[in-house]
């Protein structure tokens, strides 16, 4: 079954005519013959929140590392905050926050020393913002980094990334391995900060629920390729699973915008990207078709159907 790669033409932001903070054109990363990011193109408007969903090896981290200027690209181009990524210098990097899943903070330092160290590296450092975040996350400045739990360490990483008031924030699976309470507190910190400022955010996460809550638009990646980039509110509204019984000799009827089609004996399930009630009427009047119904889908089901529709 062929799949559709969909990028919505509408602006990826609730506010029209806002500047674009991230522009990616045909971005590709290969190690020898292995392509890990394959011809990725999308744009993200200022102040909007993009969620990246994909399994391990889908290319999420590699994409973020290239955008943050930490990894060389093989082909294609990208610019962040108006600067091509290969020209990112200290001035531009000071406007970008990056939170990885494993935190590179010297373990022998106290939190106070880690803050002092990062403060010296960032010209835009805001002491009040830092103090507020440490308080919000209940981080005691006297504690050693090595004594922190995984959740506390993630929150310290976020506090350090947000204290220089970035215009662009990359969150690379920052909540992986955190317990539900720590994850929620982490997201609270992100929400409090982005709602204060017009910060553009890209969040890559395995937690589909978190991505759904937080994102204006969602990009589904699989084995380096983009399967879809759509506005969050449209995905669940438009993507439906149509079920029917087909008892005929020829191939069953096909539907436009099909993502995945499968059957179990005479029962067929077709997931479509752009559902319309007319599809049901058309199916119901097709020879050999009976028991037509339509089902809503969760974002997880939609993601799985995009991936399985590839094979």
């Amino acid at each position, binding site marked *: 079954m062929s799949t559709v790669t969909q990028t919505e033409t509408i602006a990826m*932001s609730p506010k029209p005519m806002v500047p674009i903070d991230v522009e990616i054109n045909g971005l590709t990363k290969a190690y020898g013959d292995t392509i890990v990011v394959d011809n990725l193109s999308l744009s993200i408007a200022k102040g909007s*929140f993009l969620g990246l969903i994909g399994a391990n090896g889908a290319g999420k981290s590699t994409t973020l590392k290239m955008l943050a200027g930490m990894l060389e690209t093989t082909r294609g181009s990208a610019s962040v905050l108006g600067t091509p990524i290969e020209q990112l210098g200290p001035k531009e990097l000071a406007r970008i926050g990056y939170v990885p899943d494993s935190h590179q903070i010297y373990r022998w330092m106290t939190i106070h020393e880690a803050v002092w160290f990062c403060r010296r590296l960032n010209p835009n450092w805001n002491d009040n913002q830092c103090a507020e975040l440490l308080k919000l996350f209940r981080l005691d400045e006297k504690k050693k980094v090595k004594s922190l739990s995984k959740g506390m360490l993630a929150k310290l990483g976020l506090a350090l990334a947000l204290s220089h008031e970035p215009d662009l924030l990359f969150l690379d699976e920052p909540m992986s391995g955190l317990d539900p309470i720590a994850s*929620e507190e982490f997201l609270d910190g992100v*929400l409090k900060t982005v709602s204060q400022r017009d910060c553009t955010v890209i969040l890559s996460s395995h937690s589909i629920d978190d991505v759904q*809550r937080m994102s204006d638009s969602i990009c589904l990646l699989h084995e380096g390729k983009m399967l879809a980039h759509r506005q969050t*509110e449209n995905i*669940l509204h438009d993507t439906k699973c149509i079920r029917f019984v087909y008892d005929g000799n020829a191939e069953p009827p096909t539907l436009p915008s099909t993502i995945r089609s499968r059957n179990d004996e005479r029962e067929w399930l077709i997931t479509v990207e752009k559902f319309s009630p007319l599809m049901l009427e058309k199916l119901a009047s097709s020879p050999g078709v009976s028991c037509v119904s339509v089902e809503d889908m969760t974002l997880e089901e939609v993601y799985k159907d995009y991936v399985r529709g590839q094979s």
Partner: protein
Amino acid sequence: MKVNLKSSKPIFQQIVEGMQSAIAGGVYKAGERVPSTRDLAIKLKVNPNTVQKAYEELVRSGVLVSMRNRGKFVAKRAEHSATKQSELAIAEAFRNGVDIARASGLTNKKIKELLDRVIKASEGKAIA
């Protein structure tokens, strides 16, 4: 108000309807200020842009009034308007059901019978 991630209804629409029910139910009364975009986003754990979009929709439909630098307030007669909007949303949900029933070839009589059965079942659940 809660956000249901399993629903196919967009989150901003859930917030619009949640706020209409809250006003129709007297949680927020005419002239009172509703939570700020930021506070509601943090409470519901959703993107502030989504709350902003819901509030813009509520201002457009006359349920809320926006006052510069002071926030958003429940409009006078908003209870009435919110009740009407809630009814419209319910009618839309029924319409979707009717569309599906028609596509399955059900007659009007059969559809009404089904609705009666659903109402009775739901009353049973309410008593239990």
